[in-house]
């Protein structure tokens, strides 16, 4: 085990998989010479050379589409979109091509490819650079979607993503890049897809979260513990496949659930989680599922306003207390 950052854990995953498998290549805007806008690809060009680490033009749709073709042709591309916001320019290749090709061609071809995309809000980057689009990807069948909360999960999930023979949308939270945690050194350390991680056990209420929201949920759980409220924090880790079984089992135990989502509330992934909970254990619920969500507005720039739009620890604490106070 080593204590490293989320950024370095991702970097290590890329290096280990590129060493293990010579068909893994990396490309994106400024990933090679500049070593990535967030420096996740630091050292890759030096170690693996320009044939496997390539800078691209600013052509997001084509960054994804070339990866689709390369994957079809026997290469395992890891394409970086500088931020997830730019994925909207690539939605045609992501949704119309990447997720559908295997199915519409009758299963005759696999697309072993990863799209890495940093995102999330909280850095005052305003409306066009602060989006949480995870629900968009989760909505479409045909790809896996991972969104790690910790450095260990970041490494283990990215390695699994690169080895996956399905296309993977790999989301990274920009505010977590500098977060630190213990990460296994073993190059065969993998985190499976479709398995939630119970990051904290508790008997009173289940908090379901992902990525940075998991980090906030754990902080909220610490605060609530001071008032003798025991929260169980379930980290989704992958949004697709969605491991409903693990969070339903948790809610069956606690009888209460708060779902925390950074995305917009309307049709947000929290609605899907809540539905799965209702489907799985309606009769055991002691309160309605509560959602703590991003506000349904474009992200404002002003620090004061931005804070209102993104779930905060205090919001989660309040939601847990409201859930516990509910009498049905």
């Amino acid at each position, binding site marked *: 085990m080593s204590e490293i950052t989320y950024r370095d854990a991702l970097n290590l995953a890329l290096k280990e998989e590129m060493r293990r498998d010579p068909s893994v290549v990396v490309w994106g805007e400024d990933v090679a010479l500049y070593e990535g806008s967030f420096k996740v690809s630091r050292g890759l060009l030096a170690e693996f050379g320009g044939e496997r680490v390539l800078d691209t033009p600013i052509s997001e749709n084509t960054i994804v589409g070339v990866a689709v073709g390369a994957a079809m042709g026997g290469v395992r591309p890891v394409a970086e979109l500088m931020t997830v916001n730019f994925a909207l320019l690539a939605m045609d290749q992501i949704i119309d091509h990447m997720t559908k*090709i295997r199915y519409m061609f009758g299963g005759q071809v696999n697309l072993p490819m990863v799209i890495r995309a940093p995102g999330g809000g909280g850095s005052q980057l305003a409306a066009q650079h602060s989006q949480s689009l995870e629900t968009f990807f989760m909505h479409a069948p045909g790809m896996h979607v991972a969104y790690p909360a910790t450095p260990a999960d970041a490494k283990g999930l990215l390695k699994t993503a690169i080895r996956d023979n399905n296309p993977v949308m790999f989301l990274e939270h920009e505010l977590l890049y500098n977060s630190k945690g213990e990460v296994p050194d073993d190059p065969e350390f993998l985190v499976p897809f479709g398995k939630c991680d119970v990051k904290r056990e508790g008997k009173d209420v289940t908090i379901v979260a992902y990525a940075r929201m998991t980090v906030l949920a754990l902080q909220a759980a610490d605060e609530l513990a001071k008032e003798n409220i025991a929260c169980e924090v379930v980290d989704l880790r992958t949004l697709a496949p969605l491991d409903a079984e693990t969070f339903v089992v948790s809610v069956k135990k606690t009888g209460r659930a708060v779902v925390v989502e950074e995305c917009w509330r309307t049709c947000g992934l929290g609605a899907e989680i809540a539905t799965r909970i209702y489907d799985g254990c309606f009769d055991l619920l002691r309160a309605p599922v509560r959602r703590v969500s991003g506000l349904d507005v474009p992200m404002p720039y002003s620090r004061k306003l931005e804070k209102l739009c993104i779930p905060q620890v205090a919001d989660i604490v309040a939601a847990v207390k409201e859930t516990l106070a509910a009498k049905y």
Partner: protein
Amino acid sequence: MKETSLRAILPDHELVRMYEQMVLCREFEESCAEQYTKGHITGFLHLYSGQEAVAVGSTHALHKDDFILSAYREHAQAIVRGAEPRRVMAELFGKATGICKGKGGSMHLFDPELAFMGGYAIVGGQFPIAVGLAFASKFRKEGRIAACFFGDGAVNQGTFHESLNWARLWELPVLFVCENNAYGIGTSVERSSALADIHKRTCGYDIPSVRVDGMDVMAVHAAVKWGAEWVREQSRPYLIEALTYRFRGHSMADPGKYRAAAEVELWKSRDPLPAFAIRLIEEGIVTQAELGAIKQEAIAVVQQAVTFAEESPWPEDGAVWEDVYV
């Protein structure tokens, strides 16, 4: 071209094979139209009649393992590459025996064994995928090129420009082949492109290009032969604009009223099938009787394809969940 004898270019059996394929494609498409009116083929159906010289001339000029990608008017491309007509017809019928198990339909034919890498129905969607396949070939040192077919309408999509730039920048072996049939559904090239000479649009990307008569199978063959080898040797993209015409509407839903009758008749007088047949007869490569036999054989193959499709089973319900993930 007319001065050069066909025999100086290709052996007799290949020339005859090319003609057979053109006839087969025409009969296949006309049969599709009939099956559509009967309700056996549903959804969108875009027919290739009139454009056969492009698919046949090109495919015979490529290596068998070169990648071919196309758009949604691609039945002929797949069949000429080697897809069994009966399995293509079964796909159009939505049957389990179809080339994609009935999941793709008319617009999404695919067979990796034939390096036929797909029919794509988002205009311009195949450009970056072709670039990616060319990257894979170069990265893996396979010596294959990616031949990317597309219509005149696709050149105004962003992916066209992004992919031209990318292929030139990374020096990738992509042969872009524009099948300019003069209309994107009902909008003519002149009404959609500021520069209607599509082959000239590669100038901004330092990519050479040529315009060729897409109704002349041997002219297409010559252009693709030269272009493909240049692409392969230079590991650089090249673009061919083939001027052609679809004899039918954009799809079966389109009566084609935006085209003047005289224009359609003019192009039909340049039908690539009889034009090639005359040359084959003039050079003594086939007889009139053999031409008749070729047509009868094509009709029989297509009829067998229809029978096969009719008699094939529907997919099992469980198939709906298969092939989403590995």
